[in-house]
């Protein structure tokens, strides 16, 4: 699998996810500068966490309009897998690659901690190594991860099985207490229609190494390598 990571001037999880990817691919991960429009051949493009252009207006708003995103949209249409993590999720929603918006956390504070996720769907290149219903532990770190979409959209997402992850208790209950940011229906990650694009607030790259306290995130990168090899 050839993987690339976009680097915006305010990205700060670009290296983290590149390291996690390389660990699974055994290859160097390509870094894509935000002004590049001429991208190499890639099987997976990751839009990483951070604060793209400072995110002072609205998270992801400026990133969504960057030159590189126009090209990524074209690639996504052709089926190239795109993974938006945290700020990357905010960017790809702003860019319309997946539905919804990420609003300010209901508690109004930035939250950095491990959360438990229930894997809702394992029928994608991203989640093939998980079982539907499996509970995984993955960290979050964001101030604006409160997923919002209107009821119609939410019903459609659920109906088509496009919810990828939900915030859950360690035993898999979907409760208010398990929801760290006020997201509608505890949604932590969603797919596009064809499940080739995934946006998620939690950071799989932060628990992909036993030295960091866990490896639940690694399965996502391994699955991608396996599917897209």
């Amino acid at each position: 699998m050839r993987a690339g990571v976009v680097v915006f001037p305010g990205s700060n999880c670009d290296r983290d996810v590149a390291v996690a990817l390389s660990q699974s691919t055994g290859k160097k991960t390509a870094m894509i500068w935000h002004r590049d429009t001429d991208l190499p051949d890639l099987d997976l493009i990751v839009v990483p966490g951070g604060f793209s252009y400072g995110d002072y207006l609205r998270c992801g708003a400026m990133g969504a309009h960057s030159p590189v995103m126009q090209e990524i949209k074209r690639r996504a249409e052709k089926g190239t897998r795109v993974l938006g993590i945290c700020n990357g999720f905010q960017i790809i929603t702003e860019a319309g690659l997946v539905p919804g918006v990420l609003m300010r956390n209901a508690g109004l504070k930035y939250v950095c901690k491990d959360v438990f996720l229930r894997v809702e769907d394992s029928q994608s290149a991203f989640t093939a190594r998980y079982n539907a219903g499996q509970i995984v532990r993955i960290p979050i770190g964001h101030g604006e991860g409160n997923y919002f979409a209107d009821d119609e959209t939410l019903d459609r997402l659920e109906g088509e099985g496009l919810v990828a992850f939900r915030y859950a208790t360690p035993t898999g209950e979907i409760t208010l207490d398990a929801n760290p940011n006020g997201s509608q229906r505890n949604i932590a990650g969603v797919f596009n229609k064809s499940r080739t694009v995934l946006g998620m607030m939690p950071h799989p790259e932060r628990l992909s190494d036993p030295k960091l306290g866990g490896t639940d995130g690694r399965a996502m990168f391994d699955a991608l390598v396996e599917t897209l090899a």
Partner: protein
Amino acid sequence: MKAKVHITLKNGVLDPQGKAVEHALHGQGFKGVSDVRQGKFIELKLTGSDKAKAKAEVEEMCKKLLANTVIENFSVEVTD
């Protein structure tokens, strides 16, 4: 010319900040307050002198960048 842009959340979209501010105001003893909504206010300068054209341009900016029309409304006012 100057433009003033108001960006507000659409009705029906939950406003956590507004809710928190309301809560805090109640805590401070301002009991008669309700329906607090928080939005953005952006001021900017423009070259040129055609107000109608300027307004259209700023509206374009809102659609393209300043507002997220999935959840936000905007209004633009242009003055000298």
